[in-house]
């Protein structure tokens, strides 16, 4: 198309098909195979955004994921994504992109005025400027900074895409599909190993697609395509393009992000991205190298690019970034840009080499300046001309800059590895400490020529295969030439007067580094944080090393003496959505349903989350105005006749073994050895530090068979502790544990008619009479004509009560059967609220009381700590401080004025004392309105509580500014003698 003014011949794009896209609303065209960046350049669009701090015009600087400049907003509406690198965005039909970080249009950004203020916006500007007056911070400074900070903007809508995660396993993970990676993957795959080859690019081959090298007599890109085809056809190889291995974790675990649909107009209901956890036996890092720039005056103008990137656009995309290109290099590799461009007929105005040596190549039609440099550039919205150190001014609309290549050592640092300096290539290479199982090959390892990379990759794979025990077929490395790549340590142009950029994303200049040095910063880590160099989303891939070199210059030390920075995951940014994966909304965590959930749903239940469980909180009936109406009724009807509650959520642990009773003696404070078969006993557990941990009932079903119940919240934790006690503390005991929580649907049947109700469902000849089945009895039996069940005569409500358990698959039907059988008694289902009210009325401790701070003594359960035997926590529970005379005790409270409610969390103050911490007597743990007594009641801990019954105390809640008076009473409000539950 005529629009594509900068399209030239060749490249790995499909010219038979045209893709339409828009940039800032302007219609443009490109081809499959293009990135957004290459398509923009093809359309002559050099200006693509504005700088972060000074709002200077910015263009495309690189051709890869290291891009600091060309960040755009992609897509629209809820799909809008800010800070997307145009250099890695695959072009698709209908793509819409807009530029970022400007007020007004991209061409006329009002915020560009900040550039004129630049003398004031130097390193540490924020730290120095917004210090005072203090009152200005919140009202003035912060809002201004917030509105001008950041680059792109969020859609402020929920992310409509879905994301997924996954797990992969392999013998060898090859990271990067350039020449070294392809050669290694091929060699390893041929020996039969499970190989994953991952590359962030959508077109495997790395620099082979961007250069004009030959391998084994064919073009590098053809060789890459051929090798890839062979690999893709093998069952033991998984080629993952569009997949960034972003982090190296312990023991061969890697994180990788696969972009599944980012190259498509629509995700079509499929995950947009998948976050993989890759388990590898060995890994090979063949991530290549990243070119670095040279810093000189006004080096940030659109049109100034890395020399290798210019080659990529010309060779891979068939785009010439300029019509008249100048090249500024300090190394041999930069000259390849000149020869490649010349071969494509692109006009080259000059080659400027900082080295005063013989020109390494001759370039037809180009002026050559050896030992020279670029000191300044011109062109407000795009490069027009450059000025050399000699003062000579040359016209150019593109300047290709090469400061040498940095091996991509990033992943070698993720496990504390420190890169080492290698003088021959003036760059850091991976150090000796690598992540477990990792090898590094090719340019990432400092093997900067193609021939060397191919040999390195093949050799590494061969040795890894031998190490893993694969019979490796002797494979010969593909052959290619070892091109010249001599470089020099030349980082910035000292003669340059104007500002010279290092970090273009965070707008950090050479001057900022020098100033930081003057202000006393020496450590590279401090320098980074002070100047924000390398702390933008590109993590300083092109700027860290030049900045380090300038710091070294200031200190007069060598670069390795000055230090290096450690790279941390992720290698490139990972969207929050990918990290969240499926864990959004109601899928944030799994949920558990009680067996009678369906029945409850059909009968007006309101549910409450307790842990992962959904439990019926109350069952509203028509006409009830609020939850209190329902809860009061449930309590009243249960106490008057009979109520039924699904208590399946309590933890159940099946304990068997010859030494099971002795084991229980170790973990419970009270004795279990002599518990008869067919009986249940309350048990209390302590932590080893003497604090109460959990409680519940344990039933003895047989000589060697117990069933323990735990609280709902602690079910998993108690099981874990019991396994610890079994395996680590008493491994000589014959005892076995298995959870049966989900296996039995268990229902509390409570109230004076509970026996009458149950007698209708149990099978003959089971005798339910008080003599045959008294309080704390248990038995296995059958019900409803043969269904196996377990019956326990226990009571949490204080009523005559039972808990009956049936296999969970019968649970929903069981609830219906119990209600049907209870019809004649007006049986009522009750939820967790009524359960809570009745347990407070009865004075049973629950989670509010067993809160991790209280002892058996505090809870009034001191008598449950057996004096005759040891148990977990016993020794430390005897510490004097836990047994002081004025220790807090659990007692009951009732308001003096019955119309007043008590509040949990209130503190107790003795009458006449000031309400302050020094006079604090304890606190209220649980309160409820008691329909049984017609007023609010409470449980709480108060000093010497057991000796203070009858005292009127102040119940103070300073947070809500509420105070009432209450009488200290027994915690057992309801049936303190316990006659009902025994009845």
């Amino acid at each position, binding site marked *: 198309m005529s629009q594509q003014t900068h399209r030239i011949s060749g490249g790995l794009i499909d010219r038979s098909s045209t893709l339409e896209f828009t940039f800032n609303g302007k219609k443009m065209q490109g081809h499959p195979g293009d990135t957004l960046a290459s398509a923009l350049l093809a359309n002559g669009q050099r200006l693509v955004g504005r700088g972060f701090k000074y709002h200077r015009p910015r263009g495309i600087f690189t051709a890869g994921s290291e891009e600091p400049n060309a960040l755009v907003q992609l897509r629209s509406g809820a799909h809008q994504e800010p800070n997307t690198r145009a250099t890695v965005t695959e072009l698709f039909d209908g793509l819409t992109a807009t530029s970022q970080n400007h007020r007004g249009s991209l061409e006329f950004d009002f915020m560009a005025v900040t550039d004129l203020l630049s003398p004031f916006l130097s390193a540490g500007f924020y730290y120095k400027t917004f210090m005072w007056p203090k009152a200005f911070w919140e009202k003035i400074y912060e809002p201004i900074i917030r509105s001008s900070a950041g680059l792109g903007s969020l859609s402020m809508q929920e992310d409509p895409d879905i994301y997924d995660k996954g797990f992969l396993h392999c013998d060898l993970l090859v990271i990067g599909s350039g020449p070294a990676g392809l050669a290694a993957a091929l060699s390893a795959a041929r020996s039969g190993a499970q190989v994953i080859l991952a590359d962030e690019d959508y077109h495997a081959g790395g620099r082979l697609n961007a250069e004009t090298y030959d391998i084994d007599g064919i073009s590098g890109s053809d060789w890459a395509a051929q090798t890839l085809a062979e690999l893709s056809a093998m069952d033991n190889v998984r080629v993952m393009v569009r997949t960034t291995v972003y982090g190296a974790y312990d*023991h061969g675990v890697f994180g990788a992000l696969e972009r599944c649909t980012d190259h498509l107009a629509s995700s079509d209901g499929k995950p947009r991205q998948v976050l993989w956890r890759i388990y590898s036996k060995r890994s090979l890092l063949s991530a290549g190298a990243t070119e670095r720039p040279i810093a000189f005056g006004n080096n940030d103008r659109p049109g100034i690019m890395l020399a290798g990137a210019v080659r990529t656009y010309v060779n891979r995309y068939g785009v010439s970034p300029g019509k008249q290109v100048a090249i500024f290099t300090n190394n041999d590799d930069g000259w390849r840009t000149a020869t490649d461009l010349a071969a494509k007929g692109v006009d080259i105005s000059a080659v400027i080499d900082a080295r005063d040596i013989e020109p390494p190549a001759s370039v037809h039609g180009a002026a050559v300046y050896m030992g020279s440099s670029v000191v300044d550039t011109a062109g407000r919205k795009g490069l027009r001309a450059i000025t050399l150190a000699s003062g000579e001014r040359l016209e150019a609309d593109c300047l290709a800059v090469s400061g040498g290549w940095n091996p991509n050592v990033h992943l070698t640092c993720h496990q504390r590895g420190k890169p080492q300096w290698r003088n021959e290539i003036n760059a850091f290479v991976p150090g000796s400490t690598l992540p477990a199982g990792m090898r590094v090959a090719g340019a990432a390892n400092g093997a900067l020529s193609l021939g060397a990379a191919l040999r390195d990759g093949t050799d590494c794979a061969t040795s890894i295969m031998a190490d893993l025990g694969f019979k490796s077929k002797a494979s010969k490395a593909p052959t290619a030439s070892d091109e010249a790549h001599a470089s020099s340590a030349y980082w910035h142009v000292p003669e340059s007067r104007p500002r010279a950029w290092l970090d273009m994303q965070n707008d950090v200049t050479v001057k900022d580094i020098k100033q930081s040095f003057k202000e006393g910063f020496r450590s590279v880590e401090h320098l980074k944080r002070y100047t924000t160099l390398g702390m933008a989303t590109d993590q300083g891939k092109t700027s860290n090393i030049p900045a380090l070199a300038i710091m070294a210059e200031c200190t007069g030390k060598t670069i390795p003496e000055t230090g290096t920075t450690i790279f941390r995951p992720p290698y490139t940014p990972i969207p929050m959505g990918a990290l969240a994966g499926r864990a959004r909304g109601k899928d944030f965590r799994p949920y558990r349903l009680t067996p009678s959930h369906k029945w409850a749903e059909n009968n007006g239940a309101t549910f409450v989350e307790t842990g992962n469980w959904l439990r019926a909180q109350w069952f509203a009936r028509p006409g009830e105005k609020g939850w209190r109406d329902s809860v009061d009724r449930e309590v009243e009807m249960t106490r008057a006749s009979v109520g039924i509650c699904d208590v399946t959520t309590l933890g159940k642990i099946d304990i068997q073994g010859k030494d099971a009773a002795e084991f229980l003696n170790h973990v419970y404070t009270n004795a279990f050895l002599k518990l008869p078969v067919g009986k249940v006993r309350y048990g209390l557990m302590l932590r080893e530090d003497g604090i109460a941990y959990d409680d519940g009932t344990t039933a003895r079903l047989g000589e060697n068979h117990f069933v323990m119940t735990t609280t709902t919240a602690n079910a998993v934790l108690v099981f874990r502790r019991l396994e610890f006690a079994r395996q*680590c503390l008493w491994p000589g005991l014959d005892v076995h544990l298995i959870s049966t929580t989900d296996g039995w649907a268990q229902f509390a049947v409570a109230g004076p008619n509970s026996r009458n109700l149950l007698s209708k469902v149990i099978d003959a000849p089971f005798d339910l009479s008080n003599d045959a089945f008294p309080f704390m009895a248990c038995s296995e039996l059958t019900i409803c004509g043969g269904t196996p069940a377990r019956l326990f005569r226990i009571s949490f409500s204080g009523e005559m009560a039972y808990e009956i358990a049936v296999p969970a698959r019968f649970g929903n039907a069981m609830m219906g059967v119990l209600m049907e059988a209870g019809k004649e008694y007006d049986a009522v289902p009750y939820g967790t609220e009524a359960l809570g009210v009745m347990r407070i009325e009865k004075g049973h401790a629950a989670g509010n009381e067993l809160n991790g701070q209280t002892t058996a003594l505090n809870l009034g359960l001191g008598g449950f700590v057996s004096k005759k035997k040891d148990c977990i926590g016993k020794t430390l529970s*005897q510490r004097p401080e836990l047994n002081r005379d004025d220790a807090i005790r659990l007692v009951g409270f009732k308001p003096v004025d019955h119309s007043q409610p008590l509040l949990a969390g209130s503190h107790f103050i003795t009458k006449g004392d000031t309400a302050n911490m020094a006079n604090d007597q304890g606190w209220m743990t649980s309160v409820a309105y008691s329909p049984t007594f017609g007023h609010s009641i409470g449980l709480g801990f108060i000093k010497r509580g057991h000796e203070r019954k009858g005292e009127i105390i102040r119940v103070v809640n300073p947070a809500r500014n509420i105070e009432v008076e209450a009488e200290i009473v027994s915690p057992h409000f309801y049936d303190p003698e316990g006659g009902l539950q025994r009845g």
Partner: protein
Amino acid sequence: MIINHPLLGPRDAAEFVYLGDAALIDRPDPEAENADEQFYEYGYLRDNPAGAHQELWYHEQGDRSWLVVTRDTLTHEITGVKLARDEAKKRGRNK
């Protein structure tokens, strides 16, 4: 991290729950004369080595075994994994 379970082979650490110092196996004798002192040390005092550390991991999402894992706290290198039950017996806990 990957823990090489002695019975099950390499498993992701995500399947495990971490407890801490394997010294927790050495629960003092409650009958000892200075039992309170010993339990105080057992409960509250831990070594915090920069280097090899024996620690307890529980394979909760697996076979429910407690393991004694020797892990370098600096590098995370794991140099040994044993069943805690065997280790406890070796340390003389036979009851």
